């Protein structure tokens, strides 16, 4: 079955069409992996257009919602076929900081790239990050901060994650006052300057060739 229409429906955020095309693809015995891939192509496309300043967040949001609706239909087949998101990411705003718009955007972008995302919310203590990391065994951990006074919380979180033996998990940090220099200084694996680049950075860190 030609899945380009499904890709297009995701790109344009047409929820009804995306759901219907997903259902039709399933009924046509299309490989669930191919259906999923066609959705990811759509999300990648809208992500790239977003990065080129051709669309705004709302357009990305409606694409993400269309994908979510289709995934609701597709997910049982993916599970039955043993197909799960290849990578898991944990994300949160560090202790003392309540700002979450940037963190939410990154979370949305990672989900669109088919990462299994565990969002811990805001004001997340280092202990909570460690606990969640042990529970979910993620490849990526994203730390967000907006305040200069909560930047030190990033350092203590990274120290506790490393002390807990999570040395292979890659840590990405971001937020308005964050720089590459600060990321290097506190031992983060990478710095993502914005939500769109957070996908590329994460894919690069886990060695995903789709990057």
């Amino acid at each position, binding site marked *: 079955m030609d899945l380009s229409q499904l890709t297009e429906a995701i790109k344009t955020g047409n929820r009804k069409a995306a759901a219907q095309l997903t259902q039709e693809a399933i009924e046509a015995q299309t490989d669930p992996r191919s259906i999923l891939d066609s959705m990811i192509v759509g999300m990648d496309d809208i992500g790239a257009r977003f990065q080129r300043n051709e*669309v*705004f967040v709302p357009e990305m*949001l409606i694409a993400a919602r269309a994908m979510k609706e289709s995934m609701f239909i597709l997910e049982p087949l993916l599970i039955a076929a043993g197909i799960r998101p290849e990578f898991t990411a944990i994300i949160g705003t560090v202790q*003392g900081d*309540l700002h979450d*718009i940037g963190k939410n*955007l990154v979370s949305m972008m990672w989900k669109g790239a088919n990462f299994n995302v565990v969002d811990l919310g805001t004001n997340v203590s280092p202990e909570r990050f460690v606990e969640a990391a042990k529970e979910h065994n993620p490849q990526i951990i994203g730390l967000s901060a907006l305040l200069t006074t909560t930047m030190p919380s990033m350092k203590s979180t990274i120290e506790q994650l490393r002390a807990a033996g999570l040395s292979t998990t890659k840590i990405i940090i971001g937020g308005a006052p964050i720089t590459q220099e600060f990321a290097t200084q506190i031992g983060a694996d990478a710095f993502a300057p914005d939500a769109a680049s957070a996908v590329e950075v994460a894919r690069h860190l886990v060695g995903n060739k789709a990057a």
Partner: protein
Amino acid sequence: MPSFNHLAIEDPANLIFGFSPRPLVTRRGLTLGGGIVYPEINFTLPTMFVNGETMPEVSRQYREMISGVLKRASELSVPGLVVEFETLPPMTENPDWGMEVTHILLDALHEADVKDGLKSVLRMTPNDTREMVRPPVMRSGKLWENMLELFERAGEAGAELLSIESVGGKEVNDEALQACDVAQVIFALCVMGVRDMRFLWTHIREIADRHHVHAAGDTACGFANTAMVLAEQRLIPRVFAAVVRSISAVRSLAAYEAGAVGPGKDCGYENVILKAITGFPMAMEGKTASCAHFSAVGNVAAAACDTWSNESVQNVRLLGGMAPTCSMEQLAYDVRLFNEAIADGPVAAGFLQRWLVRSDIGLDPQALVLAPESAVQIGREIVGAPNPYRAGVAAGLAAIDLIADAYKDKRLQIPEREVCWLDSIQSALYDLPEDETEFVDTMMDVVDRTTFRPSDYELN
């Protein structure tokens, strides 16, 4: 409780820097809005933890900042000075820490008056720590009590201007901004926000009354400034941010309806609309706040200011000295220019006002809606509405009209990809029901109710 059903300033030419129909006189004799623009400075710590162990260093930092600022202010013969102490969250959660710094600042201001004759006033801005828990507990609990305790003790100690960047409604607004959903924005600002502001500012005004200080004003920082930042990052259209700014005036107005008397908080760019409505003096910030954040309204924001602020600056070393001291110098020269224009008479002041406005308003819709002509038009729509909900709709539609007309007449640049948003926002506003109850009922089925406690907003 005052309500505003007509404009205090009808003529945009009178919506000008340094003059407010209802000026505010402080204990040391500053007359805010009485014909002089005063600098308003704020400063904050460099990157560091604030806790019991670091408090000695925190205090040292604040002593260093205020002494440098006051020395430079005296050297440059400022006409008076507003110092804002915007606490950091641990200082609001632990009022003893907040008061330790408050006393350092008040003592320094007193000493500068005695030694150098520098007249000043302290604006106290505790954090709205109610959002430290999710969903926020807005009307009770330890966070609420500690916040009020800091207001109370600061007012008693002599901090004359009480302010806050309140957060009521932010639980819904963040999501609304990302989706550019104007109905949710109105629900967040004009239903949730207004209800919380009425509750919060009644308490602040009572504290102010008890200590013979002033309930100054609030800001839609967490709402309209968040939109401004998202627009600057090209995440949402600037036309949407401009509409949010206009609607935000309805929320900020609720503080004055509960008894605030100005000056409104510096980062409330909507203050120009509030000045037109209330006639109270307003703090504004723009180009000299670039140490804190970007804005596309650096000049136009100055057109109607009564105090001119730097927003905030970290205590880091620059070539010219510590950053707060350098920031003080910039503000001092800025206000010299305003006050020289005022001294030259209304014609000269009018020229400066127009230059400040015209240099910005053709380049960004967010600047256009802050022009005195726009502010008067938006303000008129707000005071003519039957309730805050309809006021929000009217303010949004007025902003759209102003932007669309200016774009059509080639007085305003809008990127091509933003033009379609004018129609879609306008349509969304026209689709909203007349009746507030119907709107609230509809929205309660749309918004994520897990993010807030409906009872805190008198909702079911």
